[in-house]
């Protein structure tokens, strides 16, 4: 199981990181309620307000006093200082980052002794304020040159980046449109069992194939939702977590590998599908945790677009390279499938919280709180993310 140190450029992942910290509280907003209110033309809250509602729920869930918290991470959509001001937190350590980096940073801060109990707070009013993910004002263009560089040729929107990836992936692997459809069909299967999900109507492969293209080869059902909401997590040092909580969910190991070469011209997506970076991230997390794909009961994949899922199946070792299509058809990732994946419905069907809600689902599956969609006796849940070349592998366990 333990990969050669050559896989990490001769450096070994630090085994001390195994179970260094645990999630002791999760909270979120009612995205179904806010979806309906947004559709009725209301603005139920702003990003800070959603984050703070989630934080109140996470504190309740953790059943701890706010004074226990000595670290704060604000999500990328709200100013760190204002979030800290409103949360009434004056921590001894802080940061601002996206979902998976936040989990990773929290573990690092805990491991290094800068904090013991870290609150991670994210809120996003993207639906009610009409955040643009395509066109001349596309979100993220300041951080990612590829989001804006190709606009003279009309090449814009996040979806286009993934459509271009899927097209060359189909060609390279013989992956079919029908196989792509398996992902959104499976995730709707899960969301139909999740009362928190925004889109709960089951769909068939035929529905998928009949749906219109937004950016061919991506169909409407391959796209994430755009909705308002917030998520908060409370992560504590492992020993402290055991004292504070009767049901801590441990972070067994984290791996990361970035593929920046060819980022702007999209070579890293179109030629390599981020595969080399996913493999190194996976190997590191497996080496730290002593676990492998066969030990995982549930997989959670960052799914702004459905194509993330087959790439993850190959990159993180669930299917042989070139066999994700076969895996989707024969093993299955939906209810009743061999590898339950995105069991909440994910970004496609539950809520688009940019990876944050996936962490909540990891925790709830391991606590056995998922009702009709609960995966029986889940012991290990794997979260993977490959946003803009930053490939992460996070393994949760009880």
């Amino acid at each position, binding site marked *: 199981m333990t990969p050669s140190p050559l896989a990490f450029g001769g450096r070994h992942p630090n085994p001390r990181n195994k179970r260094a910290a645990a999630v002791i509280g999760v909270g979120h907003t009612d995205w179904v309620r806010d979806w309906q209110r947004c559709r009725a033309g209301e603005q139920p809250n702003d990003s800070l307000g959603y984050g703070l509602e989630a934080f109140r729920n996470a504190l309740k869930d953790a059943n701890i006093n706010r004074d226990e918290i000595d670290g704060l991470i604000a999500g990328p959509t709200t100013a760190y200082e204002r979030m800290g001001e409103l949360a009434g937190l004056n921590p001894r350590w802080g940061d601002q980052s996206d979902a998976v980096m936040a989990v990773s940073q929290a573990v690092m801060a805990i491991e290094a002794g800068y904090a013991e109990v870290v609150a991670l707070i994210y809120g996003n009013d993207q639906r009610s304020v009409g955040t643009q993910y*395509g*066109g*001349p004002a596309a979100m993220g263009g300041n951080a990612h*040159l590829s989001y*804006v*560089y*190709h*606009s*003279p*040729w*009309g*090449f*814009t*929107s996040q979806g*286009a980046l993934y*459509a*271009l*990836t899927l*097209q*060359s992936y189909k*060609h390279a692997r013989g992956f079919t449109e029908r196989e792509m459809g398996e992902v959104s069909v499976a995730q709707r299967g899960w969301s139909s069992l999740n009362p928190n999900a925004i889109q709960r109507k089951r769909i068939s492969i035929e529905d998928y194939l009949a749906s*219109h*293209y*937004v*950016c*061919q*080869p991506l169909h409407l059902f391959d796209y994430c939702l755009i909705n308002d909401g917030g998520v908060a997590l409370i992560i504590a040092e492992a020993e402290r977590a055991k004292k504070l909580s009767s049901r801590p969910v441990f972070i067994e190991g984290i791996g990361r590998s970035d593929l920046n*070469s*060819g980022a*702007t*011209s*999209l*070579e890293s997506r*179109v*030629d390599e599908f981020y595969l080399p970076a996913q493999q190194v991230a996976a190997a590191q997390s497996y080496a730290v945790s002593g676990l492998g794909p066969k030990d995982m009961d549930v997989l959670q994949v960052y799914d702004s677009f459905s194509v993330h899922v087959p790439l993850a199946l190959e990159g993180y070792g669930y299917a042989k390279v070139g066999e994700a299509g076969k895996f989707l058809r024969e093993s299955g990732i939906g209810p009743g499938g061999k590898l339950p994946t995105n069991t909440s419905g994910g970004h496609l069907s539950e809520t688009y919280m940019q990876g944050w809600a996936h962490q909540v689902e990891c925790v709830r599956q391991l606590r056995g709180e998922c009702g009709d969609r609960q995966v029986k006796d889940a012991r290990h849940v794997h979260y993977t993310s490959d946003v803009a070349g930053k490939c992460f592998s996070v393994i949760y366990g009880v």
Partner: protein
Amino acid sequence: MSATEVKTPRPVMGLYDKPMWESVRAGAMKLQRCKHCATWLYPPGPSCPKCLSPELEWTRVSGEGKIVSWVVFHRHYLPAYPPPYNAIAVRLAEGPTMISNLEGTMPEDGCIGRAMRLVYVTMPDGVMLPRWRYEG
């Protein structure tokens, strides 16, 4: 539509992008080539990502390439681009990949790998864009 409504989206125009766009306007696209290791850069930048040398030479590209991926937009994002329209990724003979458009026809299944030829297209507002046609 008025002229302002069909404005071609303006390119990102950093310090190192200007010479490239000037060469496009002249109908002879140039990219930077590293004087030390002969790596070609796209998009333009201050130094070679392979050997870190800042000694780069603006050099005309051959105009040859092959198509490596494609999409067709069915949503209206930009006034200059009413759907449906295509975008393609082309691997230049020199090495870099460029996002552009296929001229003359729409891409279709089986086109990946086809040989391409660089052409220069003047947009309705006068902006000149490097685009690609199937070779032959």
